[in-house]
């Protein structure tokens, strides 16, 4: 193993690109500060892009042991890296916006539609009960309804 023979910036760049992609879904999405704008991932992608660029230049250097193979590999790896970065940007900024407009949702100042639904123990709970049953011995001042997609 000779570091001069291996185009390490290229491969580290590729690994970092993949790690930057995965880390959003496994780590950064857990914290509002790195979720509401994926700046941590963009920092990692920027470092990866620099490494890929160095790797690409190295792949085209005249002193490579297998010049043709080296050029092809470095171009392919760079393209894959760029695609991964593009896929992330697409998933976040385009895919993330594929939500219904919900124009008919209750507006500020309107009464929220009454409902009765089972809780996780199967007990029927009405909105009216949620608004009137006391919190720490006092009548609630409000109810926060959070609609979420589900556990699947």
């Amino acid at each position: 193993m000779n570091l001069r023979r291996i185009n390490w910036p290229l491969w580290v760049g590729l690994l970092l690109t993949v790690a930057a992609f995965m880390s959003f879904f496994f780590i950064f999405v857990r914290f509002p500060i790195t979720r509401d704008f994926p700046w941590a991932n963009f920092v990692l992608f920027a470092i990866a892009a620099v490494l890929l660029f160095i790797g690409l230049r190295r792949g085209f250097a005249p002193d490579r042991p297998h010049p043709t193979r080296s050029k092809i590999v470095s171009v392919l790896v760079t393209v894959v890296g760029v695609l991964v970065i593009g896929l992330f940007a697409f998933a976040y900024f385009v895919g993330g916006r594929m939500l219904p407009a919900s124009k008919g949702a209750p507006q500020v100042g309107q009464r929220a539609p009454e409902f009765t639904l089972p809780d996780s123990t199967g007990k029927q709970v009405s909105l009216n009960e949620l608004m009137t049953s006391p919190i720490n011995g006092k009548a609630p001042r409000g109810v926060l309804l959070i609609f979420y997609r589900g556990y699947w």
Partner: protein
Amino acid sequence: MCNSELRGIEKSLARLSEVGIRPVAISVDAPDVSRNLAQNQGYTFPLLSDQNVEVIRRYDLVHAGAGENGHDIARPAEFLLDSTGTVRWINLTENYWIRARPEQVLEVSKVLK
């Protein structure tokens, strides 16, 4: 992903209770699925089950075909109601990855009587 938001609510539960706000989460999940979620994640606020998508439809929050096997589910949304049941604040995120933070809710809860 949803867990990221619900976890934030659970962490802020004491502060929300202090100002008299009761968080309630609603999804299409069956009660036993919600029970597992609550146990695994330690959620202590109510998780309501709208399996027939009736309430979600009444609130116009259906995300058609976005669930498992093309089932209809709720799009992420938050509503703060006052004690009369009037909507005082809405958050209909335009981006799936961006959600309301508990601090926002605590801030807007100041408008409640």
